[in-house]
C-alpha cells in the first residue's frame, strides 16, 4: 500500500482546547489521520475513538509463559533429570520453586509486553519517523488531516474547520517518499 503524502496540519497550544477541537473536527465529518503531542494527553484516545490497548493481555500471556517455563524447568531439573536430597527436602520442593517462578513471570511479562509495544508502534533504532512538525516534541500539539482520505471535502473547508476549533496555525505538509 502506498503511503499518502499530503496533509493539512492544525497546531494547538493547549491540551484542553485540543480535546474539544478533536471532538468538533470529527463531528464536522473530517477524518483525523493522527494527533501528535509532546506528552500524553489524558482522554485524547477516547475522543479520537481508539480502542483500548490490548497490551495488558500480551503481558498476561507472556507472564503465564514465564510461570510455566520456570516451573517446568525446576521440576525437570530437580525431580527428574538429576534428583538429589538437599536439606532433607522432597526432590520436588514446590515452595522453594516459588521465588524463581515469580521472577521469571515478571521478567517474561515485562520483556514480552515491551517487545510487543516496540513492534506494534514501530519503535526501532533505525526507524525513520515522519516528523510533521518538530515542535511536537517540545510544546505544540499537531492534528494531521490526510487530504486524500478526505477527498470529499474541500481543502479550504478543512482549514476553516481547524481554525474555528482553536488551532493557532494551520499548515500544509507533504512528504515525498
Amino acid at each position, binding site marked *: 500500500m502506498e503511503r499518502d503524502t499530503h496533509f493539512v496540519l492544525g497546531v494547538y497550544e*493547549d*491540551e*484542553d482546547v485540543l480535546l474539544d477541537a478533536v471532538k468538533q473536527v470529527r463531528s464536522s465529518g473530517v477524518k483525523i489521520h*493522527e*494527533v*501528535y*503531542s*509532546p*506528552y*500524553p*494527553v*489524558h482522554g*485524547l*484516545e477516547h475522543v479520537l475513538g*481508539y480502542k483500548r*490497548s490490548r*497490551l*495488558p493481555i500480551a*503481558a498476561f500471556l507472556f*507472564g503465564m509463559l514465564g510461570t510455566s517455563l520456570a516451573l517446568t524447568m*525446576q521440576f525437570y*531439573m530437580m525431580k527428574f533429570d*538429576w534428583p538429589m536430597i*538437599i*536439606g532433607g*527436602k522432597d526432590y520436588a*520442593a514446590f515452595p*522453594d520453586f516459588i*521465588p*524463581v517462578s*515469580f*521472577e*521469571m513471570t*515478571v*521478567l517474561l*511479562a*515485562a*520483556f514480552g*509486553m*515491551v517487545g510487543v*509495544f*516496540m513492534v*506494534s*508502534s*514501530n*519503535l*526501532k*533504532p*533505525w*526507524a*525513520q*519517523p*515522519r*516528523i510533521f512538525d*518538530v*515542535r*511536537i*516534541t*517540545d*510544546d505544540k500539539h499537531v492534528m494531521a488531516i490526510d487530504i486524500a482520505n478526505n477527498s470529499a471535502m474541500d481543502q479550504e473547508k478543512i482549514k476553516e474547520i481547524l481554525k474555528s476549533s482553536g488551532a493557532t496555525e494551520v499548515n500544509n505538509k507533504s512528504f515525498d517518499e
Partner: protein
Amino acid sequence: MQVTSSVREPLVTGGKSYHDVTHDVSRQVEGKPSLSWFLAFLTAAGVLGLGSIALIATLWEGIGMWGLNKTIGWAWDITNFVWWVGIGHAGTLISAVLLLFRQKWRTSINRAAEAMTIFAVICAAMFPVIHMGRPWLGAYWALPLPNTFGSLWVNFNSPLLWDVFAISTYFSVSLVFWYIGLIPDFATIRDRATGLRKTIYGALSFGWDGAAKTWMRYESVSLILAGLATPLVLSVHTIVSFDFATSVIPGWHTTIFPPYFVAGAIFSGFAMVLTLMIITRKVFKLEDYITMGHIELMNIVIIITGSIVGIAYITEFFIAWYSGVAAEQYAFINRATGPYWWAYWSMMTCNVISPQLFWFKKIRTSIVATFILSLVVNIGMWFERFVIIVTSLHRDYLPSSWAMFYPTWADIGVYLFTFGLFFTLFFLFAKFFPVINMAEVKSVLKSSSEKAAK
C-alpha cells in the same frame, strides 16, 4: 479538566512554560560540560581507577586478598552487596509505587532515581560475582546451564540462587522501564539537534513520533510495568534477606527479616536519592523542578521507613529475649555489648535517632541538614548490614573459633571501586541523558505548576 487544590504546593515553580521545561532540561545535554562537572567526573573516574587496582589484585590472587577467615567467611563483600542493592530500591519504588498511588511529585525525580537504581544494582552485582573467585566460570554456578562438570544443575532450593534470578530480573526490568521513559525525551533532543547528535539521539529515540496511539500504548505499558515492578521491588530485598533468614545462624534465623530489609532498603535508597538530587539540582540549576516540596516529601518517607527500621531493631531484640533460646539471646547481647559494640551503636544512632530529627519542619526543609542526614543514614545502613553479617558470625559455636574481622587494603579498594563506578556512571548519565523526565513534567504542568495555580 483537572482541578488543583490550593492547599497543595506547586510541583513546578518559577512560572515555567512547556518550552521552558524542554529548554531547561535539554540545555544540560546540549551545552559544553561545566568545569564543576569535569572535576566531579574526573574525581569519580580517579577513584574508579584506584579501586580497580584492588579489583585486579583480587581477581589475580583470589579472594584470599580479603580479610576473611574461616570463622568470618562473609564480611565486607556481602555487606557492600546488600548495601548497594538497598540503595537500588528507591528508583523503582519512586517510579512504580508512586505511579500506582498517583503521586505526581514523582515526575521530576523519577528519571534520576531510576538511573541511580540501575547503577547501584550494577555495583551490588559486582560483589557476588567477584566472591565467586573465578567469575569467568560463574555462569555455570549461577545459571541453569548444561555443563560437563557432572551434569549438575544449580540448586533451586538455595536462596543464593533465588537472588541471582531476583537481582537479574530487577536489573533488566528496571532498565527497560527507565529506557521506555527516556524514548520520548530522546526524541525531544533529536528534534532540537543537528548533525551527529541528531543521528545518535535519533537512534536512541527509536523513531518516536509522539502519535496519540503510541502515547496510549506507552501509558498502558508504563502502568503494567509499574504493576509488575511493585511486587518485584518488594521481592528483591525479601529474597536478599532470605540469604540470611533461611540459615540457622543465631542473629540471622529471623522471620522479621523480609519486611525489615525492604523498609531498610527504601530508607537508604531515598537517602541516596536525596544526596544525589541535592547536588544535581544545584549543579544543573533545576531548583524549579526539584523543589523544597520534593525534598520535604522524601524526608517524610525517610522518617516513616526509618521508624519502621527502628521498630524492627527493637522487635528483634525483644524476640531474642522472649524466645528463650540461649544462643539467640547471646547473639543479640553480644551485638550491643561485645567487641563490635561501636558498630551496633553507630547503626542505632544513624538509623534510629537521626531520622527522627526530620519531625522538625525546620530540619526537613533545610538543604544542608537534609544533605548531612542523608549521608548519615547511608553510613548507618552500611553499619546495619555489617552488624547483621559480621557480629552474627564472629562468635562461632566453638569458642576456640571466635575471631574478629579486619579489612585489608583490597577490601577497601574494591569498595572504593564500586563508588568510583557508581559516580562515574551517574555523572555520565547526568551529562548525556535528560536528568528530568520532560514529557511527564509537561503532563502535570498545567494542573500543578505555580503558573497554573494563579
